[in-house]
């Protein structure tokens, strides 16, 4: 009887342990959905890829050449990717929403979309537009597909990253100027389209993260 009681106690203890383990699993954070974009060669050529929880799917492209997917943003159930596709020197023309492309360029200029973010129902894309007539890059913000140029230096500008905090839109990039005959890149933060130069030249802000009131 004593042995039985001891065995029963151990059994109950083990059951409780399993139960607790199960409870811990139940109260742990739910598994997040992980979206990763990039490129891979699944069908004989380099193509833009979206991995959802490790499962690859190809973002089909209109041109049979190199495609890169370099930025991804979520808004509700929508997935937006910006794609860099090299085709006849017209780069990075597409913003993808749930697998369907939206052109960011009229195809006559070299356009680079460097980052995408969403705020509510608004979609913000930043990048560059290369104007071949003046051989100059111009930083561009597309808000819901509508392009607006950001002020630059006397030799143009480029935009690399965008974040939205409340009603404020912050964009990092660089303004290009020729100073004393030397090409100079001045790292820049645009707040709602107004540029403020950062202190060091030839430094390219590549990403911004917001924490509380920090940018």
């Amino acid at each position, binding site marked *: 009887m004593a042995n039985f009681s001891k065995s029963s106690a151990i059994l109950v203890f083990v059951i409780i342990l399993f139960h607790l383990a199960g409870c811990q699993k139940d109260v742990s954070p739910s598994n997040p959905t992980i979206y990763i974009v990039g490129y891979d060669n699944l069908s004989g050529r380099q193509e833009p890829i979206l991995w959802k929880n490790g499962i690859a799917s190809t973002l089909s492209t209109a041109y049979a050449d190199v495609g*890169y997917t370099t930025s991804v943003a979520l808004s509700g159930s929508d997935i937006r990717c910006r794609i860099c596709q090299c085709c006849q020197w017209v780069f990075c023309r597409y913003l993808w929403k749930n697998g369907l492309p939206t052109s960011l360029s009229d195809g006559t200029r070299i356009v680079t979309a460097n980052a995408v973010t969403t705020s509510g129902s608004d979609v913000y894309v930043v990048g560059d537009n290369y104007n071949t007539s003046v051989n100059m890059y111009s930083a561009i913000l597309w808000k819901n597909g509508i392009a607006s140029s950001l002020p630059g230096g006397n030799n143009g500008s480029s935009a690399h990253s965008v974040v939205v905090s409340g009603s404020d839109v912050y964009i990092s990039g660089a303004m290009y100027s020729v100073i004393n005959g030397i090409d100079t890149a001045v790292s820049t933060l645009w707040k709602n389209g107004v540029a403020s130069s950062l202190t060091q030249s030839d430094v390219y802000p590549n*990403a*911004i993260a917001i924490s509380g009131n920090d940018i």
Partner: protein
Amino acid sequence: MFILMRLPYRATIFNIAGGEPATLWKNGIASILAGGYSYAYDVAVSGDDVYVAGWAPNSSGNVYLSVATLWKNGVASPLSDGLTKAQANSVAVSGRDVYVVGYVTNSAGNSVATVWKNGVASSLSDGKANANATSIVIK
């Protein structure tokens, strides 16, 4: 009454000619993340912690065998072994889990798209051709 002045966080890449190291500006104060020529590509903030993804030269100072690196509050964690070229492109935080994506070059010389969860690598591509993971978001 205290008025707290807050200035930008920035992760930057440096011009190639200058060869300056990857740097994080926190509240306007620059922190050098790695010696030599190095890059910082992405920054994420979770609570008080600041994470930066990029690459640094390997332990021999070889920039051609770059080490995919995650910096947490300025402290580097190598994600690759420095025997082949690797790079971290993007970082995201979900709860206590930190995810980094990038690539690691395999023995065949192909870049393998890779995701690191809390420093543990998983391949996204088969390594038969060049692939790269450039950005991550978590829902």
